């Protein structure tokens, strides 16, 4: 990256932030998610937030996403000023930092993951409803990776 592109990026981010702030509806709440039971201090915690059945676990439709160093434990994610509504969270520990959740040749995840409500699915991930929670006032959630 050329040095002179840095300010541009900064400006872009700043205006995106301004836009986001301007877009908050009147009832907004903060969501704090504490992620525990990591296997190690390696890599990153990758967390995604969804707000509907239709968008759940669809990368192009996620409502928000954050990542944190796994060396900071527990991992505490904060989403500020979220509109009231129903949400679900998925998170995994990208332990080897290869940018994806690894699975073995049988398709079984080999990195730890979790969902809000500590939901577990049947024959696959949980449904949005299993993982969903209501947000009207600020609240805190705990997820234990499995």
């Amino acid at each position, binding site marked *: 990256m050329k040095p002179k592109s840095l300010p541009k990026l900064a400006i872009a981010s700043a205006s995106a932030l301004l836009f986001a702030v301007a877009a908050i509806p009147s009832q907004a709440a903060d969501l704090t998610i504490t992620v525990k039971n990591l296997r190690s201090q390696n890599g990153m915690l990758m967390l995604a937030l969804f707000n509907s059945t239709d968008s759940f676990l*669809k990368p192009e439709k996620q409502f928000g996403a954050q990542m944190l160093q796994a060396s900071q434990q527990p991992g505490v994610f904060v989403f500020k000023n979220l509109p009231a509504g129903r949400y679900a969270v998925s998170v995994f520990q990208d332990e080897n930092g290869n940018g994806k959740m690894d699975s073995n040749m049988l398709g079984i995840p080999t990195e730890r993951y979790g969902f809000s409500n500590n939901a577990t699915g049947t024959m696959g991930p949980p449904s949005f409803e299993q993982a969903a929670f209501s947000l009207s006032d600020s609240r805190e959630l705990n997820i234990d990776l499995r």
Partner: protein
Amino acid sequence: MQRRNFLRLAGAGVLTPLFSQLALASQQASDTWAAEFANAQAASPWIAAYRSANRDLAADAEISGRFPAAVQGVLYRNGPAVHQLGDQRYHHWFDGDGMMQRFAIGDNKVRHIGKIIRTDKYQAEAAAGKRLFTAFGTTFPGALAPTSPDSLNVANTSVLALNGELLALWEGGSAYRLDPDTLQTRGPKVWRDDLAAVPFSAHPRVDTDGTVWNFGISMPDDVMVLYQIGADGNLRKAEALKIPQIAMVHDFAVTDKHLVFLLPPLIFDRDKFKHGSSFLDAHIWRPQLGMRVLVVDKHDWSKRQWLELPAGFLFHVGNAWEDAQGVIHIDYIHTDQPSILFQDTRDVMRGQFSRSALHHIARVSIDTAKGKASQELLPIDSEFPRIDPRLTGQRHQHLYHATETQADRPGFSAVARTNIESGKTDKYSYGAGQIAEEHIFVPEPGSAAGAAGWIVGTSFDLQKKITRLSCFASDRLADGPVAQASLPYALPLGLHGNFVKA
């Protein structure tokens, strides 16, 4: 981009695969097994062999006789040990968390240590002070959904020493790495990144050149994974084969040219699993499938041949070899059906005895040119068959095995050498008050493959409630042990072991 990858995987249903079914498999209303077992102790001395061992052990043994120089080294043995945690007693002998036993033999002294294998599952449950996951044959209310086969991994079946590393083996998941001296658990063995938590069975076969062959089966996926590992401990090759109606397979054999599998018609029913059966109880017996025989070219796994034998069940294979005409000879321990797995090895856990099947040696001929397999049964009680390891894949005459059953208790009371060509058996009986466990052949250094050597193995003294290690001359079993080492305590009845020369 990173998140996208994760979500794509998740959306594709890769997360929490079939094993999450086990979460539903917990409809047990009340559980009286621990109480039943405790109540049975007074009446039946054999019960002591199935007690839960929840602590590590260490002691010097009391020696009688003299251990020959050939057996200076370490006998490792593995087996289920933690049968109960909190109030929850497991419902199957094979469920217990593994304990590795290490008998160090040297200078006519035997030092024993036994350590519970600290699998991820054991550590989580020990920290919680109670069972968290369903096991192979046990379900209970409120169990967590396992996230992979290793969520159930108790590493309790066998042991392989490989290039300075000790592997505690199970059937349904990873091998566990242990320190060969201290038995400290180092963690799951990952042969290759995409093989993490992929089943690695408990009976790898070690070729005479040191190459280790093994397989692993994922019942829900109808997949058999084959492994070829060098004597240096490095993976040479691994591949997943799709096998329709894959069966529960515990053991196999290798010849010079082939890997040989016997598939008893015990197959997996996804619907039963979905509706709450334990992993074991999701298996169904389909005798109409016969015993399928799969012969795989060692060096080209795409070259495979299927043959058929009459329906029957087995855990253990002795050995296999090929004659000049290309006919494969293989022997195994045969029962008519799998009731031992569903009844006998379950009943013992609540202090009940049943012997629902006869275990006899089967000799099989597999004529790959004609596509025909046939077998004959030798009516000799047997289990835990072993051979001179130098004859793996070569013609062998002798099987060393446990034998002699008692009318009122499980297990065997004698160790035998059977000549499978003549059917002649030589044995040593420990007596009705003792349970003979697996015994292992240890060669006399410098002798030819197949020549007489030594037999080492353990027995459980039901009166004194101690475990003994005995050593015999392999060709003079009836003379009794040349040396014995008596521990000051009993070890829970174990499964398989291996000897490592000093």
